[in-house]
C-alpha cells in the first residue's frame, strides 16, 4: 500500500552538537568503525588515496596518502574557501539555494562538508573516501560538498553516510556540487546507511564539460523513514557523458523517492540511467528518471526495474523523457513486478530451497556489476551488499 511522504520540518531537529576531537579514522571506536564499514568506508584506509571524516558538525579527520599529494586536494569546504577564494563561486553554481525548503534551510544553516579537487591531468588510482556521520539523536546535519575534477583528470570517490547505532531520528541535508572539467572522468559511489526513523534529503548538481564523463553509483539498502533525492547532471560540453546507476532496497516502512535527471545540452552528449529497486515489507519506492534532450545531437537511455517483494509494498516507476529539439534520441524501458515463479521453480529444481532461490534472485537483481567499477571496488561493495542483504532477506 502506498504511503504518504512523511512530513519533514527541518526546524524541528536539534541544531546543537558537541564538537568531536580530531582523531585519525583508525582511532574511531569499534561501533563507529563497523557502521561506516557498512557504508563502504575503510577505517584502515587500505586501498584508499585519502579520507575525509565528518561527524555531526565536526571535521574529525582529513588525511591524504603521501603518494597522492600534488594530485588531490582534500579538505573541508570551509577550509577550501579560505585557501581558494574561487571555491565560493562554485557554491550554489549548479542549483539555486531557494530550490526547495531543504536547500534553503541548508544554505542558512551550514555545517561544513568536504572539498575534493583532482588536479589537472592527474589519474588517481585509488578511491578517495569521504564519510558523513551522525552520532547524536534527532540532530540535523547540513553539509555542502564541492568536488572538482580538473581537465584531463580521473578519479573515483566513495562516500558513505551513516548514523551511530544509537541514533534513530535525524535529518541529513547533503548538498553536493560537481564540476567535471574538460576531458575528466569522475566516478562517484555513494552508500547510505541510515536509521529506520531517519530522514535524508541529498541535493546534487553536476556540470559536465567537453569530453568529460561523470558516473554516479548510489546504494541504499538499510531502512530509512524518508529519503528524497533527484540529482541533476548538466551535460553542457561537447561529447560529455553522464550516467546514474542506483540500487535501492526498501525495508520496513521506508519511504524512498529516488530519481536522477540528465540534461543533454552539448553536441554529442550522452546519458544513461539504470535503476534497480526492490520493495519489501510496507516500504514505498518511487524510482524516477528524467532525460531532457536539449541538443539535436544527443542521446540517452533510461532503464528502471522494480521488484515487489511484498503485497504491502508499493513501487512506482516514473520514467520521463522530454525532447526539446528535433534530433535528440531518448528511450526508456521500465518494468515492475514480483519475482517470477518460473525463476524460483528453476532454482528449486537445482536443489535451492524456496527462500534460498528468492535470496539468490534478489541478490542477482541488485548486482553491482551494473556499476562497471574496477574489480576490487566491485568486490568490496558486493561483500557489503551481501552483509546488508543477509540480515534483510
Amino acid at each position, binding site marked *: 500500500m502506498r504511503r504518504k511522504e512523511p512530513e519533514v520540518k527541518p526546524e524541528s531537529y536539534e541544531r546543537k552538537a558537541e564538537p568531536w576531537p580530531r582523531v585519525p579514522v583508525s582511532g574511531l571506536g569499534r561501533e563507529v568503525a563497523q557502521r561506516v564499514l557498512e557504508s563502504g568506508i575503510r577505517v584502515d584506509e587500505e586501498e584508499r588515496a585519502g579520507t575525509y571524516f565528518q561527524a555531526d558538525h565536526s571535521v574529525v579527520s582529513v588525511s591524504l596518502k603521501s603518494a597522492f599529494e600534488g594530485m588531490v586536494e582534500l579538505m573541508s569546504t570551509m577550509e577550501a574557501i579560505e585557501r581558494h577564494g574561487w571555491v565560493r563561486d562554485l557554491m550554489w553554481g549548479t542549483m539555486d539555494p531557494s530550490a526547495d525548503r531543504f536547500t534553503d534551510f541548508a544554505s542558512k544553516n551550514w555545517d561544513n562538508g568536504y572539498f575534493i579537487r583532482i588536479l589537472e591531468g592527474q589519474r588517481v588510482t585509488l578511491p578517495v573516501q569521504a564519510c558523513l556521520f551522525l552520532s547524536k539523536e534527532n540532530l540535523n546535519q547540513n553539509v555542502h560538498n564541492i568536488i572538482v575534477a580538473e581537465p584531463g583528470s580521473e578519479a573515483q570517490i566513495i562516500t558513505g553516510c551513516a548514523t551511530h547505532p544509537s541514533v534513530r531520528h535525524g535529518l541529513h541535508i547533503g548538498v553536493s556540487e560537481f564540476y567535471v572539467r574538460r576531458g575528466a572522468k569522475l566516478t562517484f559511489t555513494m552508500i547510505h546507511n541510515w536509521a529506520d526513523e531517519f530522514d535524508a534529503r541529498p541535493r546534487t548538481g553536476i556540470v559536465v564539460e567537453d569530453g568529460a564523463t561523470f558516473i554516479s553509483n548510489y546504494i541504499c539498502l538499510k531502512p530509512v523513514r524518508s529519503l528524497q533525492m533527484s540529482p541533476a547532471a548538466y551535460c553542457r560540453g561537447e561529447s560529455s557523458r553522464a550516467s546514474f546507476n542506483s540500487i535501492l532496497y526498501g525495508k520496513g516502512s521506508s519511504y524512498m523517492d529516488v530519481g536522477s535527471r540528465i540534461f543533454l545540452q552539448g553536441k554529442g552528449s550522452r546519458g544513461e540511467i539504470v535503476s534497480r529497486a526492490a520493495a519489501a515489507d510496507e516500504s514505498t519506492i518511487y524510482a524516477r528518471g528524467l532525460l531532457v534532450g536539449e541538443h539535436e545531437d544527443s542521446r540517452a537511455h533510461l532503464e528502471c526495474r522494480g521488484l515487489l517483494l511484498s503485497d504491502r509494498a508499493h513501487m512506482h516507476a516514473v520514467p520521463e523523457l522530454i525532447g526539446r529539439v528535433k534530433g535528440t534520441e531518448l528511450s526508456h524501458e521500465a518494468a515492475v513486478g514480483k519475482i*517470477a*515463479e*518460473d*525463476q524460483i*521453480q*528453476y*532454482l*528449486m*529444481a*537445482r*536443489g*535451492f*530451497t*524456496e527462500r534460498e*532461490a528468492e535470496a*539468490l*534472485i534478489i*541478490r*542477482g*537483481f*541488485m*548486482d553491482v*556489476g551494473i556499476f562497471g567499477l574496477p574489480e576490487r571496488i566491485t568486490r568490496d561493495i558486493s561483500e557489503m551488499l551481501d552483509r546488508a542483504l543477509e540480515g534483510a532477506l
Partner: protein
Amino acid sequence: MPLLEIRNLAVEIAGKRVINGLDLDIPEGETHVLFGPNGSGKTSLIMSIMGFRCCRAVSGTIKFDGVDITRLPTDERARMGLGVAFQSPPVIRGVRLGDVVRRLGGSNGDHLEMTRRVNLPIEFMGREINLGFSGGEIKRSELFQVLMQKPKLAMFDEPDSGVDVENLSVIGRAMEEFLRDRAGLIITHQGHILRYVRADVAHVMFYGRIACSGEPEKIFDLILREGYRWCEKCPKVREIRHEEKGA
C-alpha cells in the same frame, strides 16, 4: 521396485486437467523416451514429477526411490535425485551460471571437465543464466547443470530441438555416457537424440495418458512414417479420447 513409480496420476494446470490417470514405471538404469503430439502432456508430466506448483497432482501418487514424493516440494525432490534439463528455461538476470553450479557441488576441476564435455566455454560460469544464450548454448548449459547435479533420474525435455548437427553430437554423446548407469526420461519430437542415446522403452502420450509403450525403434519408425495418425487407429487411444470427450 522401480526407481520411479507413478500410479493413476491426475494433474491440473489452472483448473484444466493435463494429466489424467497416468501410470508409469522407470526402473533403475533404464532410459525411457516419451513421444506424443503437442499438448499431450509430456512437459506437464516432467513438471509434475519435479513438483512444480503449477503442476501439482490432484490425485494419484508419485513414488521415487521407494518414497512417496507426491506432496514434496521441488527442492527436496531435486536433493533426492531428480534432475531436469529444461526445454525453455527462464532468464535470471544477475544470477550467474556459476552461482547455481557451485550449489550443485563438484570441484573447479569437475566444472572444467564437464564444461569441456558439453563444449561450453568455462567463461559461461560468469554469465547471467540464459541471458543472451543461443538455442544450442541453452541446451548445453542445461545438460551441464544436470551432469553436475548427478541425479538418479535425469529428465530431458527436448534436448535436441533447435540444435545444430555439431551441438547435437556433443549433447548426444554426453547424454549417452551419462545415462549408461543412470535412469533417464527423454522427451523428443524429432527423435534425433536417439541416434546417440539408447532408449530401453518408449511411451506415447495422448490426452494426458500413456496410450502405448514398446520398443523405441519400432514406435519411432511408425511415428516417422505415419505421424500420430496410426495412433488414432489404436483402440486404446480411441478409448482415451472417448473418455476425454465424455469427461
